[in-house]
């Protein structure tokens, strides 16, 4: 029995497009333990959402294809299950919250109907049981007047309240794993703080394993135990959150940390930047995908792909250079 509730092993996802084959995810491996939050950070197009859609069997095939990889949950490979078998797990044992709570709730159904559907399907509740459970769930996520509001429609809720409804829905069958894809990106900061705290509270209570997808290193520092940094479809660095922030080993992680403005530090004349543009996924650079933007590039980087090697304090990183001693230089491409 593995220590992980959910373990992803060497996952590859590709899409066949007019532009050629896009390798959205290539060789991603990670695991999440009970009661632990794993953050997946990366910028748009880095493959962080696709990884998790693949786990849930939500990649449309075609144009998508999963040529390789496993996602082990409860001793079985999720990627090999039939749609029917997956349906029994999705929303029950593994649940998902999306960025936009408006588009992920059905505007024609009351909150009650949407919440009851899940427990009637997965837990075999009667209407009465399901309604009672729905109200209890709304209360647990801090919606005032839950017994009345449960009969309202999504548009009658504010953005923060809708995200609470989504969380209530995701947790109503007490899943083992919760996948949260940018759950607070569309929310204001004060509401974001409330939602992150709520997720942590519920995790402590039920021991839920959480995969938190985000682009915000601040959210990672607040809410995650383990972090995977993704670039161009690969995990380029993975570590425990404190050691990652104390000593990033990959130049991309380092660049991300430096380019993030902080309100608690005086403004410098210029922000540090990662030069260049995110890669075109249909035409990835050779060798290390980050080399055209990398200030630590070595001669071998455009030719060889750096393998994931262990960090001294646990975790892994994929870089030939040693950012702790090397001096940064101008990267190969300027912007434009």
């Amino acid at each position, binding site marked *: 029995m593995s220590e992980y509730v959910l373990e992803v092993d060497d996952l590859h996802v590709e899409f066949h497009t007019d532009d050629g084959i896009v390798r959205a995810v290539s060789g991603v491996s990670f695991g999440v333990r009970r009661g632990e939050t794993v953050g997946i950070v990366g*910028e*748009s197009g880095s493959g962080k959402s696709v990884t998790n859609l693949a786990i849930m069997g939500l990649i449309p095939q075609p144009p998508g294809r999963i040529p390789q990889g496993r996602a082990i949950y409860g001793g079985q490979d999720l990627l090999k299950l039939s749609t029917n078998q997956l349906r029994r797990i999705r929303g029950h044992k593994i649940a998902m919250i999306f960025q936009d709570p408006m588009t992920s709730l059905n505007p024609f159904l009351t909150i009650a109907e949407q919440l009851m559907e899940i427990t009637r399907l997965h837990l075999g509740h009667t209407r009465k049981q399901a309604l009672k459970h729905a109200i209890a769930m709304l209360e647990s996520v801090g919606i005032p007047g839950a017994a009345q509001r449960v009969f309202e429609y999504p548009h009658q809720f*504010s*953005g*923060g*309240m809708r995200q609470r409804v989504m969380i209530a829905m995701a947790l109503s069958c007490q899943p083992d794993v919760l996948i949260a894809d940018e759950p607070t990106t569309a929310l*204001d*900061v*004060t*509401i*974001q*703080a*409330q939602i*992150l705290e709520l997720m942590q509270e519920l995790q402590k209570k039920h021991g839920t394993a959480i995969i938190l997808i985000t*682009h*915000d*290193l*601040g*959210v*990672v*520092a*607040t*809410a995650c135990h383990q972090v995977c940094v993704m670039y161009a479809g690969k995990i380029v660095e993975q570590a425990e*959150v*404190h050691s990652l*922030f104390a000593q990033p080993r990959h130049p991309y992680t380092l*660049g*991300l*940390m430096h*380019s*993030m*403005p*902080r*309100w*608690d530090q*005086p*403004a*410098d*004349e*210029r*922000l*540090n*930047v*990662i*030069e260049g*543009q*995110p890669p075109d996924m249909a035409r990835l650079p050779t060798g290390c995908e980050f080399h055209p933007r990398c200030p630590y590039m070595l001669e071998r980087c455009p030719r060889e792909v750096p393998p994931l090697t262990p960090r001294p304090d646990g975790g892994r990183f994929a870089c030939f250079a040693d950012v702790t001693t090397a001096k940064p230089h101008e990267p190969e491409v*300027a*912007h*434009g």
Partner: protein
Amino acid sequence: MAEVMTAPLTKSKAAKSPPLLDVRDLKVHFPFHRGGLFTGKSGVVRAVDGVSFTLEQGKTLCLVGESGCGKSTTARGILNLVKPTSGEVYLHGQRIDRLSEPEMRPYRREMQMIFQDPFASLNPRMPVGKIIREPMDIFGLYDARDRRLEVMRLMDMVGLNPRFVNRYPHEFSGGQRQRIGIARALAVQPSLIVCDEPVSALDVSIQAQVVNLLKELQQKLGVAYVFIAHDLSVVRHMADRVGVMYLGRIVELAPAEELYHAPKHPYTKALLSAVPLPDPNAEVKRERIKLEGEVPTPDKEYPGCPFADRCPIVEESCRQSPPRLEGGAHQVACFKAD
């Protein structure tokens, strides 16, 4: 001795020339009617409810606040894109808020705008060169040959390769599109650019590039920005002064460094404490000021302080009359601010 003599002289001279932008008690209200013709309920959404500030040449004023606080409507009110309900807007000392569209024309050249969404704000059927040239066509600047040269110069200035002049917006990434939007705004040499969340839609690494570009251009060209954002970290790097908005009003207005160092309004404090820091050690130690509830809707009139219902230090007196924005360089609208 000579220094003493000239100092007050230059000062009085500076006092005479009006600020670039002067906004006084700006209000933008939207009437609404909900429900049936006779049975429904009518009212007014007070999107902007008494905003005042000035902005000097070559400086940046940032307006921050959560969604619905009226920051974007303030921007549109300044540009006369929505008609203000009341209040005054002066550009170079000339009152512009009551002008008709033809009367506004000469001022439009002075005031440009950059938008949040770099995908929606560029015409997908126009090549980049034409997008950047269009404002010059409209205002009849330069002859055809010089316009072409000017487009090249602008592209180079914002960090776009002038070779791409005939490409279309979809061929560029988000950050590059935002550069196109900036070049277009600069094409008529405005003295003021209103930037409405210009980096919110961009990835972190690209955000930093665009922030740096905007600052560089300001130093080079002396253009002033009204910069609208919800991200307090970005604002610290852009702003000379910051106005924090809540329910259509500025609740605190201060020089940037001071606002971040010594915030006075309880809302500003709560807002700052809610921004997660990219530092797990600091995150553990930090004290969060928790705000209960959500931003109230601006469709009612509040007799007292609009923040009273969520304020951690509220007193009964706060609910009776609204606090006014007061103070010298660091203004705050709170009865209990320390």
